[in-house]
């Protein structure tokens, strides 16, 4: 295979004296859906945020389509084609739903904004109903949909999702994952960080397991699901 779209090589990162990432290496090819699972505090979100230099990488390399990310300021990352849907959704609470979506176009400008808004409203009909409302009035599930749609508005080549199922009712989680499946079927490269191992590994082509800032295992979804170590490392037996 040719070179991966995202290539993370032996990356270290720390918050002050606490080392959060230790020799992390992984890669994602164009068109793949890759998941990263692991317990709370394993370093999953830190890995995603380190792509944006927050925390900064102290050792190792991160390349996106051949470009070194570690030498770029955080706000330049999005314009390379990387969209992050962060943990906790982080919608702009005092902006309308539509304004939130428009904010997503920051890296590419508003040339395609009408077309893309239509697409998002098709994918998430509830957002069209609520487009004039402040994002703070949305339910958790709706905010998650808004956060995903906002990420897609930049027409990313790589979509990073951090715990999209966090704190949502099982039925809403189902809904979110079926939408992600739809997005993935359009050829989007997705990197999904999840604690919901079952859903995540079912959706993904491949997965990694992280614990204590290190990658412990890697393999296909079914491999990992049937692996005894995964149960031990993550699901606690």
């Amino acid at each position, binding site marked *: 295979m040719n070179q991966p779209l995202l290539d993370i090589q032996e990356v270290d990162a720390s918050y002050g004296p606490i080392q959060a990432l230790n020799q992390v290496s992984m890669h994602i090819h164009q068109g793949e859906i890759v998941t990263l699972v692991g317990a709370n505090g394993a370093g999953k979100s830190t890995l995603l945020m380190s792509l944006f230099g927050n925390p900064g990488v102290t050792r190792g390399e991160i390349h996106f389509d051949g470009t070194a990310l570690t030498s770029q300021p955080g706000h*330049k990352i*999005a314009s390379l084609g990387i969209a992050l849907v962060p943990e906790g959704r*982080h919608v702009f609470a*005092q902006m309308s739903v539509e304004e939130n979506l428009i*904010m997503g176009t920051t890296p590419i400008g508003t040339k395609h904004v009408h077309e893309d808004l239509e697409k998002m409203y098709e994918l998430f009909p509830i957002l069209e109903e609520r487009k004039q409302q402040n994002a703070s009035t949305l339910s958790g599930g709706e905010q998650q949909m808004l956060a995903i749609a906002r990420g897609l508005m*930049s027409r990313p080549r790589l979509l990073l999702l951090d715990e999209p199922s966090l704190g949502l009712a099982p039925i809403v989680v189902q809904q979110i994952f079926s939408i992600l499946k739809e997005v993935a079927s359009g050829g989007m490269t997705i990197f999904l960080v999840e604690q919901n191992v079952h859903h995540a590994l079912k959706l993904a082509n491949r997965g990694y397991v992280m614990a204590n800032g290190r990658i412990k295992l890697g393999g296909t979804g079914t491999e990992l699901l049937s692996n005894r170590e995964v149960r031990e490392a993550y699901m606690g037996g």
Partner: protein
Amino acid sequence: MDLSTLLQQLVNGLALGSVYGLIAIGYTMVYGIIGMINFAHGDVYMISAYVTAIVIALLTFFGIESFPIILLGTLFFTILINSAYGWTIERLAYRPLRQSTRLAPLISAIGVSLVLQNYVQISQGARSQGVPTLMSGSFRLEMAEGFIQVSYTQLLIIVVALLGMALLTWIIQSTRLGRECRATQQDRKMAMILGINTDRVISTVFVIGAAMAALAGTLVTLNYGTFDFYIGFIIGIKAFTAAVLGGIGSLPGAMLGGILLGMSESLFSGMVNTDYKDVFAFSLLVLIMIFRPTGLLGKPEVEKV
């Protein structure tokens, strides 16, 4: 007190309040975006008074005497130079402290304030300076008993201030720059992830605040004529009071707070005592802090989960 005196004081208060509102914008926007009180803001206003005098002197030296040209010329240069001050102060005194404690930029701001005052005092002299009256005359509204008098400069202050506020509101509500400002204010990290250069946005906010202070400084200098290196202090604290009254962090709040403070101060002067008008304004600040710390239009800080 009869009706005409009351209305007269309200008109005076509206003009004074528009000035407070313009300056309060700088406090409130900076607080909204980085959570600091820029104590040097009043001194940036003071700078614009000096620039106004210098530009007027230069224009008259070159034989330009038409008032509209002088007005536009001074506005242009004070806004330009003040913006440069706002940008530079943020870059030199606040940005290096961004990762530091909340107290550090505050102390730095007091330092900048002292530096500006002293540098102007040394370079321009400690004595009070003045500009000649360029526009005189007034409207006189006859009433059943007495009259109201609105000078052209007062009218100019009110109109220009309202135009400035309307333009700024439009920028914040409807332009890309405004959306970026609001996004950075609401969630700076997320704004960065979406590709917004938040450092540039913060610089822009300082420039906007300084430009609004320049607008106020030019108008007041044209109206009152005299100024010294120390004028920024008291009017800065008043404008800060206005920002707190309206709800610090809220743009319409700054304007509303400014106008309310100006009017109540003016009414107090007219009805009670002129000497104690500052005491009155600051008592108001204390009362707001006790009974409504979020101000009139401010939102209580909600911890995000």
